[in-house]
């Protein structure tokens, strides 16, 4: 899933400072799961912006809306009429959601209220960790199911770099060296021989990637 976090309030306020009628639009998918852009966050942000505007003597009308999935134009179509009544949209979707919305609605400016930070999963304790870099050429079969592209500070595919100390990354002391983790996992799996194989260089992907639905 995509993990995002709410932008600093000052930045959001600055983005919409020239508007008096703004629609906040949440997304019911990934950003709801990571507690940053679901229905609950929409009403919190809306109330905060209204309160701030009122305390500064500004006129600001804020509407609220949450789609099931903001990264699909079909869901955006459902709010087209409502959106037309606003000067700007503040999207609480991920970067993909913001763009889909901007593209679909066309003539209404759409601004992000979130910073999309990574692809990852739940850590089981309420937090989320980056686990995938969407590189397009998955090598997890050779690394014991642990991705060095996303989880190594240097994205080394043939690590380790040698800078780790006591199993921790030299870039961030709080982060385990991913190549240490890979070594331990492969040892447990009895697959240490995989480390002797060299990962061929990845062909750099051409952006934007596309995936056509199979016929």
């Amino acid at each position, binding site marked *: 899933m995509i993990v995002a976090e709410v932008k600093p309030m000052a930045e959001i306020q600055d983005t919409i400072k020239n508007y008096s009628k703004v629609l906040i639009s949440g997304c019911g998918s990934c950003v709801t799961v990571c507690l940053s852009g679901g229905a609950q966050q929409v009403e*919190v942000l809306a109330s*905060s912006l209204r309160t701030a505007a009122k305390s500064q003597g500004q006129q600001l009308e804020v509407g609220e809306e949450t789609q099931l999935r903001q990264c699909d134009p079909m869901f955006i179509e459902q709010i087209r009429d409502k959106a037309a009544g606003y000067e700007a949209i503040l999207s609480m979707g991920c970067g993909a959601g913001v763009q889909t919305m901007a593209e679909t609605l066309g003539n209404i400016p759409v601004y992000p209220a979130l910073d999309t930070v990574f692809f990852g999963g739940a850590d089981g304790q*309420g937090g989320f960790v980056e686990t995938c870099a969407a590189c397009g050429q998955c090598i997890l079969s050779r690394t014991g199911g642990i991705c060095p592209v996303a989880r190594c500070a240097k994205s080394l595919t043939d690590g380790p770099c040698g800078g780790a100390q006591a199993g921790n990354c030299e870039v961030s002391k709080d982060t385990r060296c991913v190549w240490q983790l890979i070594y331990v996992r492969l040892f447990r799996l009895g697959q240490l021989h995989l480390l002797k194989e060299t990962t061929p260089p990845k062909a750099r992907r051409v952006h934007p990637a596309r995936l056509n639905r199979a016929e």
Partner: protein
Amino acid sequence: MKINAMPPCQAKCPIHMDVQGYVAAIAGGDVQEADRVIRRTNPFPSVCGRICTRECESVCRRGKSVDEPVAIRALKRYASDSAAAGAEVPGPEIRFSEKVCIVGAGPAGLTAAHDLALMGYRVTVYESEDEPGGMLTRGIPRYRLPLDLVRSEVDRIRSLGVEIKTGYMLGRDISLQDLQKDFDAVFLGMGSEKSTCPECSGMELSGVWTAVEFLKDVSRGKKFNPGNKVIVIGGGHTAIDAARTCLRLGAEDVTIAYRRTIDEMPAGMDEVEDAREEGIRFEFLTAPEAFEGSGKVEKMRCVRMDLDKSCGGKGKLTCVEDSAFEMEADTIILATGYVPRTEAVQELCTEGGDRLEIKDAAGATRTPGVFAGGDFVSGPTTVVQAIASGRKAAEAVHRYLRGMDQSPEAQEEILQDLDDDVARLVPKAGREKPVCLDSGSRVHSFDEVEHVFTPEQARTEAARCLHCSLGAHVSRDCAVCLNCVLVCPYNVPRPGEEKAYIDMSQCQACGVCAGQCPASAIDLRLEPRTELRQNIRRVLERAESNSQNDFIFGYVCDFSRTRPRELKGENVYTITRPGLGRIDVYELLVPFEAGAREVLVSGCGEEDCKFKDCSLWTRRNVQKAARILESIGIDPERLKIVEG
């Protein structure tokens, strides 16, 4: 209150009273509402608040799994004693032309009359005695049920337009045939007051009484001197009532002789305990053989019994050989069973028998338009069973008169027991006990033994309710983030097949998951979001228009006993809520939007809280909201938790 599965208290109650509804109203300090909820299904709250056999309490899930059951009966009494008189039930919307006749003004008949009057029928009740109430006025002693309370409940029923004619006995003053001619439907609820006596010699001696006659005479105010030694024979409620009444009439040595053991006694254990406290002795496995004396009874010859419980049921009784013994007695009272008097309705009885032939659960007899119920059909039961029977009969009469099919008995789904893993996480809280007259002084008068709860006791006791089946439910908006699984203090939510799954039978309705659900997909039956939000909006609008930008807004827990001084005074607007764990960040911020100077959150403090971790989550939410306030330039100190 819409429910999917009945809480056990409600399911077990013969009239399915909305126990949670009135207990919640008491917890919130609204006795009028509690009384209203009670009166929806029960026209005799002050009676049931005192003498109900409280089957509800026997299945209370707090009692079964956590500590002691909620004192439901005492709470009902508190509500009906405290509610202002005049909180009348609204009259019928439609009036029908049909007339209904009720024979017997006991709890079954009067309940049927009450319900039918509310449905819009003209109801006449015939009562053979000179006062309506049946066993309530002439069978239950005053120390358990003061007469004026029964009279006031009967007056309420009269105020619905029910005509009660006393002194009319079926078979003597009126006949069933005449009633069938004059009325469109008839309900027979003449009770079960004919005593069945053991086959003993000496029944004719003076000083030998049947309990019903004895209690009736005492309640009429007849002077009665039972002498010093009294033996009451029997093991039911009436035996206990008769024995305790004798003590109050001056007897010094009162013994209840019962042929089985304490385990088989139909009387409730609390009644047995009360009787013991007052000094009444019990002789179990004892059966009378003869009453002896010259003109007046002087002693009872009896035998010991042997009870073989291995054969199932109530066991098989046999006399123990050579076990005869004698007990001295100035008075002997027989409370050994009662049957209905069916002489006046022989045409409705089984072939050659003296029992009424009843065709269905609603009490239809073999004659169309004639229904019967209460103890008259079932034999002696409890007041709440009689009320239930009256309610069923009213419905059946209505369906008969309107030409509708009789409704089948509804089978309700009942909530399962609490799992041990959940039960051990529920904070324990001891049951409140009403003040009682001490056993020494109470036997000298007919003053009521048990007192009503104080308001503080009532609210504390009501707060013990576990809100069974009023917990969280997940809507289709669930994003399956499983945050609920992580935050639930009782570990109830689980990942389901399509969305998170919260087992209604285990949820404690603390609301923490609802407050933390990012999709706003979890709602609480105890405090539905739509109602809550409307309420918040309404109070804020009032605050905004009355005291613009200069008001304090507070969220107060229903279950906290004290209210901090910060939440008293002018320009303070509050919303009370059943626990604060459910509060979410938006609810903490929105009062500022309306111009609140301060937002205060008042709970009960960690130790007292009935919900596990409620204070923790309240604090976290307040901190989160305070950070947002700071980010928009509002002093975070304007939002705080205050405790009483």
